[in-house]
């Protein structure tokens, strides 16, 4: 009798969890994090032993491929980054110059932080660049999470291997580890808070710590978010980038 109950319990519960593949989980997570349109205001705090450097920004997004961020903090005011698919354009107001970044330059550090231009602006979906494998489930900070290993399909990504933990209920990433090809741990990404806006749950307070140097890391905070808003028709254009 006990065996039957155990088998039934396993049939009812375990398959519900294990029926999802790594691809399903990532797609659910990206649905949460990819919005038809959004406007987000946030700040980035870079810390080291000499103190903090804070930059604030306002970001406009459309789907996964279009992104315009404008820095609003004093030292970077007016600098903008436009991403359209695989091309990224930087605008420096002092020089009145637009610089197009492609290829390896996308992996350059953003304002000296632990975040690259590619990290900041997203662009391609995870499954475009990585093979995903579900390693299992484990508890992270009290939340049950799927543990997924990502192995790069191409050399044109910042990290050859990543392990991410995705909240099993909310389908939001709560932790990530980024590795070098040698297997050395490069960065640890911790999601400290999440935000729910119009049914979309996404990370709103993220700390990225570079494991290869004595840094206290980079804190990315989303202060406010609007999802599904009407954006100006040409906001992802060279004209808006340079105004």
């Amino acid at each position, binding site marked *: 009798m006990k065996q039957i109950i155990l088998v039934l319990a396993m049939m009812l519960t375990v398959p519900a969890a294990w029926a999802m593949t790594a691809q399903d989980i990532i797609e659910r997570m990206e649905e949460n994090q990819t919005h038809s349109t959004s406007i987000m205001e946030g700040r980035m705090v*870079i810390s080291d032993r000499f103190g903090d450097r804070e930059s604030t920004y306002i970001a406009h997004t459309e789907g996964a491929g279009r992104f315009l961020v404008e820095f609003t903090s004093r030292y970077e005011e007016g600098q903008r980054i436009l991403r359209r698919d695989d091309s990224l354009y930087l605008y420096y107001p002092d020089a009145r110059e637009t610089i197009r970044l*492609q290829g390896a*330059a996308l992996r350059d550090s953003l304002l000296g932080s632990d975040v690259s231009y590619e990290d900041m602006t997203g662009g391609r979906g995870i499954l475009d660049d990585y093979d995903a494998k579900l390693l299992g489930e484990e508890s992270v900070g009290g939340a049950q999470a799927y543990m997924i290993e990502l192995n790069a399909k191409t050399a044109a990504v910042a990290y050859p291997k990543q392990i991410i933990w995705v909240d099993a209920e909310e389908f939001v990433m709560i932790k990530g580890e980024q590795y070098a090809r040698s297997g050395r741990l490069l960065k640890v990404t911790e999601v400290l808070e999440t935000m729910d806006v119009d049914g979309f749950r996404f990370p709103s307070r993220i700390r990225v710590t570079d494991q290869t140097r004595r840094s206290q890391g980079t804190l990315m905070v989303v202060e406010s978010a609007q999802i599904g808003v009407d954006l100006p028709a040409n906001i992802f254009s060279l004209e808006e980038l340079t105004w």
Partner: protein
Amino acid sequence: MVGKRLILAVMLLIIPFGVYAESRIFAELSSFGHLLWDEDEQWDFIGSASGELDIRSQPRAPVQARLQLRATAPITVTAMYQQLVISGDDIDTELEIIGALGAGMIEVPRAHLRFRFPVTDAYSFRVTAGIDRVTWGLGSVLKAGDLLFGPDISGEHTGLAAFDEVRSETAMLFAFYFPVGDMSYTETVVRPRSGEVPDMGFRNHSAFGTVSLESAYLYRGEDAEHVFALSSQGEWLGADIYGGVSYTDDFHSWEDLHEGITLTAGAFRTFRVGFDQSLNIRTEGLYSFADDGRLLLYGDIGYIPGRTVQLFARALVEPADDLETAAGTGISWNIFQGMNIRASAMSGFSTSGPKNFAVSAGAVYSF
């Protein structure tokens, strides 16, 4: 005298602008010491201090304005070290110290007004009037497409050692910007020149796929010349590849057409060093067919070992002219937000020997 004028100028500017809370005032102070040596084999040690005041209107507004003032006190104390004198067994060093306040200089690098008004629901027509920067062409230092400020930086080699951009020219101009779709625009520029026919021209810039393309035309009033240019940028093996060609002609003579041609090409690539360091390498070349040909080569290397430290080295070489070279190297440490400590060395030399040498160190603080 300079100080009084500067204070007066600042007061006159700040008082009215203070009324408008949306205007912002930025300031930057820099202080450097320079050890200089020149062809006369004379060493100088000078100090320089400069301040910059930048008043800007609200960004993103339909009307934008900017006024930038730069005051420089170029020499505060001069110590002139004469050469070591060796006479028989006696070694003597003559040292003369001169205390002097050099003539100050006030510049206005920017004073302009920009505004735009809608043409359709999606696009606006934009006007810039005043002293501003306009960057034409694709590339960094050597670019045939820069019809307004020239394809190279001859005569401004001192900029190589500075941490600021090599090209930072501004000019009085009137610019009219018309977007043509999301990733394309046309810009018309009129650049007045005192006592001369103004320079007038336009460019069309487009980006599609991984390629950017820019075509341009300029009429140079001073020389009554017509200049045409075509520039392109693409990506290959993870590197930015770019190049351009320009053609200058006064259409008075149909001989030696090739003398008006200038070609430039360049490449830029970022490499990851170790796990988190980066190395940027840029190489550029220019060939002008004028005056039996002229070749210029430029290269820079930037190494970023950490989040706050940058090292660089740059060189501009003219191989056919005794390998005349201007080279600079330096380090910058962004120790606190807004503050950089910098040190650099630069030299001008050729096959006939060194011409000058300078070592500079100091700090820049923006607040």
